[in-house]
């Protein structure tokens, strides 16, 4: 083996190590994010009955709307999974196609959430009305903000893949973005189980 070949092998090894440690770092970040959400859930549970003579959860929640949002996020988790599989097979065109579908589903989710928030504020159920509504907008809004950044991340990857190809750093980024996206779907399970379902009962 020549010196240059050995050097490039070493470089590849170093790159792999650095990407693996980034994946671990991202995992640690996700766990801290899980703690933030858990505490926002606790805040919501404590405040959820404090409607201060304003609208209660029964007045403002629509379970059909929530079911629609749930469906969009769950399907988007599946389509991101399909993008990951296409990446493992080295099919960059397929990866981009599935990422576009995922981004559209993410935008659809955000549009539904915006409609819900806008409708609530228009009906006089804004975040300033009661402890219940403050906690609701903080929790669900924080999740929505995460989905917004996730969607932006997907759009960045849609541009980056054709420019750079499926190189190891690009693959690692897509893997980390996938972790983020699936994580947001897990948080949403908590939101419909803690906020919406008990809210309409």
């Amino acid at each position, binding site marked *: 083996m020549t010196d240059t070949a050995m050097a490039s092998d070493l470089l590849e090894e170093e790159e792999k190590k650095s990407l693996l440690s980034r994946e671990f770092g991202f995992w640690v970040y996700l*766990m801290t994010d899980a703690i933030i959400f858990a505490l926002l859930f606790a805040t919501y549970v*404590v405040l959820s009955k404090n409607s201060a003579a304003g609208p209660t959860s029964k007045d403002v929640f629509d379970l059909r709307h929530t079911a629609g949002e749930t469906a969009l996020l769950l399907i988007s988790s599946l389509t991101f999974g399909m993008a990951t599989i296409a990446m493992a097979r080295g099919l960059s065109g397929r990866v981009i196609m599935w990422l576009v579908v995922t981004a559209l589903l993410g935008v659809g989710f955000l549009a539904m959430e915006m409609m819900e928030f806008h409708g609530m504020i228009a009906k006089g159920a804004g975040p300033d009305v009661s402890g219940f509504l403050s906690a609701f907008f903080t929790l669900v809004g924080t999740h929505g903000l995460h989905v917004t950044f996730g969607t932006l991340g997907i759009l960045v990857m849609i541009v980056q893949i054709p420019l750079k190809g499926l190189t190891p750093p690009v693959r690692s980024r897509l893997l980390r973005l996938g972790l983020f996206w699936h994580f947001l779907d897990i948080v949403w399970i908590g939101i419909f189980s803690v906020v919406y*379902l008990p809210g309409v009962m």
Partner: protein
Amino acid sequence: MNHSAERSVSTYLTGFVLAIILTAIPFGIVWGGLLTGTAVYGVIAVAAILQVLVHLVFFLHLDLKSTPAENLFFLGFAAVLIVIMVGGSLWIMFDLHHRMM
């Protein structure tokens, strides 16, 4: 996470179908008013916990063999912190609420 694990279409589809079932059960029960009282909360909680596990295994590909030990360690650490902080906060706040009544 783990590059070498075979991420097959069927894994994701299995997770997807299980997730739909575990979403449909609590929605159906609340929608149809099939149960009342604490039983509903029980079903919602069990379905939610099972669905989180389904997502972790089928979408995030967590398992005890191929996932690096430190990742599982941090997951466990976060779970312990969440139980202490959320459980403790709820305990204190509901106890306070009870005493103020």
